[in-house]
């Protein structure tokens, strides 16, 4: 491991060599041994990877080339899993070898900053689950469903290829670089690497993007619960259940998390079943049937209270519940898809793939498919999780590949499963559910007539079929239930009822799906509001120092109110939008998320350049360029397109002119007030797009400046500033991946032979 030509020039910080403790076995597998192990291709290994490649190839052939009447869902599973395995085994190793160059002789923050609380060495497999639960939420369950309007193939290709070359790369690099910096956040790294301008732009962009993301997630919940007494009751019950769990954990049996999670889960199931019974009663139906505006206001008030309540009372217990459900649901969905193997009748490319006026989301395939599916392929939001929390728990440097890259592959698989669930339902039903009421008219008769009038091949829905589906899932209507969540719930109910329970259980499965999506989203809304509030407090604190005191109530409440007010305004705008809401706002969600990815990748680009790895800069530059081109093109079209359905300002101008002409209805807006709302909404959405894209261009430019500067320094033989924490020798060993290699096993055995007092020695307190 002696010669590493690309090792960054160490700044004069007095970094000593990594002298290992002579009393201990080696803390890393010998480089030469690991290399030899890696390069040794036994016949069994060759056969295994050839089989994986072959199976993946056949699966892609079935999906992309064969044009039968139907395609079986199992091919989606094979195509994705085989591609992930190949990406993980080969591409992520290339990144490890050429870019990150982990060194297991170095202690991780969890070791040298160990405090038993925030910095704790965590078993890699447990941390994998932990990290996965933190990154995966409702996002990958929503985007692919909305994107299914274009057919299954564009979304599938982007989810699978995108994650291997972009999404997982981002997560891995951000996690690794944050780990090398003691678990610093993305914002702090941006400031350090890109300077004050780049750092400030990144901070403002992150704050705004969080507002948009929280608002649109909330919109998904509102759309799923509107006019649904069952859903309102069972999701509403999660609040008392979480409060009970919180009190139980604080006062009755502290720390019994598994126990309380099980109790919570049972109560949750009871709430779902109870919701069905309540919704059938006259009083229940009257009390819990709420319109979307009421639910939106409820959510805003809830969001404010939840964000100022102590964490132990609501946020922490619901987070346990949400994690518990997340893992259960995903295992269940995977099992169901593998067992049931539904036949998919949706075409690879739908009629809308080549048009820019799709009813579910407007805009052409490029760039809008790539922003509609953000989570699951490339999600900038992950950079906020991959920096900060997870890096403080990593045991060994090499494990970042498994946790960062591997964790994101897992989320991508969730997105694929969501896509399969969405396309397993009838296509006519899909469009009836996902087109705004402005198009479908809102009743089963008008919706059926509208869908049949679209001229889609093989699509023929009847009002009776729409009414029957609604009855099966225990809803009053399923027409124009936009936002993706209800479609996923119908798809999941459709698959699960073939697995367990039949039609009789369909309503249960539907509401089960709505419940877990709402649970994920409410947790994200709470946590997002809190994180954003602290960011705002710290930013204001630069001018008014009092705001930096997190325990100062007036400051905390004011900042919470500002954040809730901001996302609440966008939420209400979406709920009351005469054009339909989700179809105009969802592209903004994707653009925001991808712009955050561009910011994260910019920071990584600057760091990689400063480390001197110029030859392999393309590994970061390619996904960054793609994200930048996609989001800037999408923003450009949203701002400048002359097609009103696509361009916010074109729409704005059209409605302004209609108002000036004295018209009292225009397009789907049926009153002057609605027309005025469109003018207002499009202006806000348009200006938000402008602000996002300008801030991101500033960040990307600053990253390019930093990269060029690093290159000049490098060529001139000058050292680049290296913001990594000082290297300290590690005193522990653990394998890097899921399955330990023979050399790792040998070393582990050596460590296990150590006397206990030596083995548990931790580095943290010997300052």
């Amino acid at each position, binding site marked *: 491991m002696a010669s590493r030509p690309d090792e960054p020039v160490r700044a004069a910080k007095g970094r000593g060599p990594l002298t290992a403790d002579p009393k201990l076995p080696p803390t890393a597998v010998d480089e030469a041994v690991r290399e030899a192990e890696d390069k040794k291709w036994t016949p069994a290994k060759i056969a295994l990877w050839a089989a994986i490649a072959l199976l993946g190839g056949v699966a892609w052939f079935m999906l992309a080339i064969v044009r039968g009447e139907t395609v079986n869902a199992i091919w989606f599973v094979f195509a994705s899993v085989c591609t992930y395995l190949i990406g993980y085994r080969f591409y992520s190793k290339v990144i490890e070898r050429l870019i990150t160059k982990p060194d297991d002789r170095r202690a991780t923050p969890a070791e040298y900053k160990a405090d*038993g*609380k925030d910095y704790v060495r965590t*078993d890699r497999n447990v941390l994998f689950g932990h990290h996965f639960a933190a990154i995966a939420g409702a996002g990958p369950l929503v985007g692919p469903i909305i994107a299914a309007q274009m057919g299954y193939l564009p979304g599938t290709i982007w989810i699978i290829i995108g994650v291997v070359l972009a999404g997982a790369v981002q997560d891995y690099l951000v996690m690794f670089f944050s780990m090398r910096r003691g678990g610093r956040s993305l914002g702090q790294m941006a400031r350090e690497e890109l300077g004050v301008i780049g750092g400030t732009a990144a901070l403002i962009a992150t704050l705004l993007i969080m507002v948009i993301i929280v608002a649109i997630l909330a919109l998904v919940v509102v759309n799923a619960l509107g006019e649904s007494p069952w859903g309102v009751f069972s999701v509403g019950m999660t609040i008392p259940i979480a409060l009970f769990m919180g009190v139980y954990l*604080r006062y009755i049996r502290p720390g019994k998390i598994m126990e309380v999670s099980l109790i919570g889960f049972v109560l949750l199931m009871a709430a779902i079943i109870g919701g069905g019974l309540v919704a059938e009663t006259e009083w229940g139906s009257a009390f819990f049937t709420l319109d979307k505006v009421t639910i939106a206001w409820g959510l805003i008030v809830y969001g404010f209270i939840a964000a100022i309540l102590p964490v132990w009372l609501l946020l922490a217990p619901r987070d346990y519940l949400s994690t518990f459900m997340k893992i259960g649901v995903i295992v269940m969905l995977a099992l169901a898809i593998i067992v049931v193997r539904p036949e998919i009748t949706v075409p690879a490319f739908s009629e809308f793939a080549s048009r820019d006026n799709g009813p579910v989301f407007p805009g052409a395939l490029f760039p809008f498919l790539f922003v509609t599916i953000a989570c699951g392929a490339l999600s900038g939001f992950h950079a906020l999780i991959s920096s900060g929390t997870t890096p403080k728990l990593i045991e060994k440097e090499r494990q970042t590949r498994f946790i960062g890259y591997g964790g994101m592959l897992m989320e991508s698989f969730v997105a694929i499963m969501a896509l399969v669930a969405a396309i397993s339902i009838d296509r006519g039903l899909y469009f009836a559910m996902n087109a705004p009421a402005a198009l479908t008219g809102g009743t089963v008769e008008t919706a059926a007539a509208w869908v049949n009038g679209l001229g889609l091949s093989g699509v023929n829905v009847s009002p009776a079929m729409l009414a029957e589906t609604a009855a099966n899932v225990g809803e009053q209507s399923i027409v124009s239930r936009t936002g993706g969540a209800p479609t996923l719930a119908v798809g999941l109910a459709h698959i699960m009822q073939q697995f367990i329970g039949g039609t009789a259980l369909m309503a249960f499965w539907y509401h089960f799906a709505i419940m877990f999506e709402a649970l994920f989203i409410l947790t994200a809304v709470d946590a997002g509001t809190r994180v954003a509030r602290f960011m705002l407090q710290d930013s204001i604190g630069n001018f008014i120092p009092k705001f930096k005191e997190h325990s100062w109530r007036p400051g905390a409440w004011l900042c919470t109110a500002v954040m809730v007010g901001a996302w609440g305004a966008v939420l209400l705008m979406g709920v009351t939008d005469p054009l339909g809401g989700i179809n105009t706002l969802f592209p903004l969600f994707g653009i925001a998320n991808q712009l955050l990815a561009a910011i994260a990748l910019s920071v990584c680009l600057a760091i990689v350049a400063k480390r001197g790895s110029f030859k392999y800069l393309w590994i970061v530059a390619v996904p960054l360029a793609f994200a930048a081109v996609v989001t800037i093109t999408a923003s450009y079209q949203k701002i400048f397109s002359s097609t009103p359905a696509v361009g916010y300002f074109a729409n704005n101008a059209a409605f302004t002119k209609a108002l000036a002409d004295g018209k009292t209805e225009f397009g789907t807006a049926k009153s002057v007030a609605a027309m005025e709302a469109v003018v207002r909404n499009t202006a806000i959405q348009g200006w938000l797009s402008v602000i996002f894209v300008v801030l991101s261009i500033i960040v990307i430019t600053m990253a390019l400046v930093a990269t060029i500067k690093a290159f000049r320094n490098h060529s001139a033989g000058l050292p680049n500033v290296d913001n990594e924490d000082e290297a300290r020798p590690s005193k522990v060993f653990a394998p890097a991946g899921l399955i330990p290699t023979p050399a790792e096993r040998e070393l582990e055995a050596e460590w296990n032979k150590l006397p206990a007092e030596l083995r548990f020695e931790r580095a943290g307190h010997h300052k």
Partner: protein
Amino acid sequence: MSPGLAAVATGFRGFARYLGGVLGADAYAKYLEHHHAAGHGEPPLTEREFWRDRTDRQDSNPQGRCC
């Protein structure tokens, strides 16, 4: 117990332990281990105090949850 049943029980226990780890149920045990290993003079926090401290610190250090 038949060997098959025993294997199922072991598997289930392992899964429960794993899930507990992911949820963070073992945080107090890890804290104690750290406290012991680091050789602090003062007695460790009790279980009740530890969990109180843990959630109270989260009040000012929120952990992000993704979409």
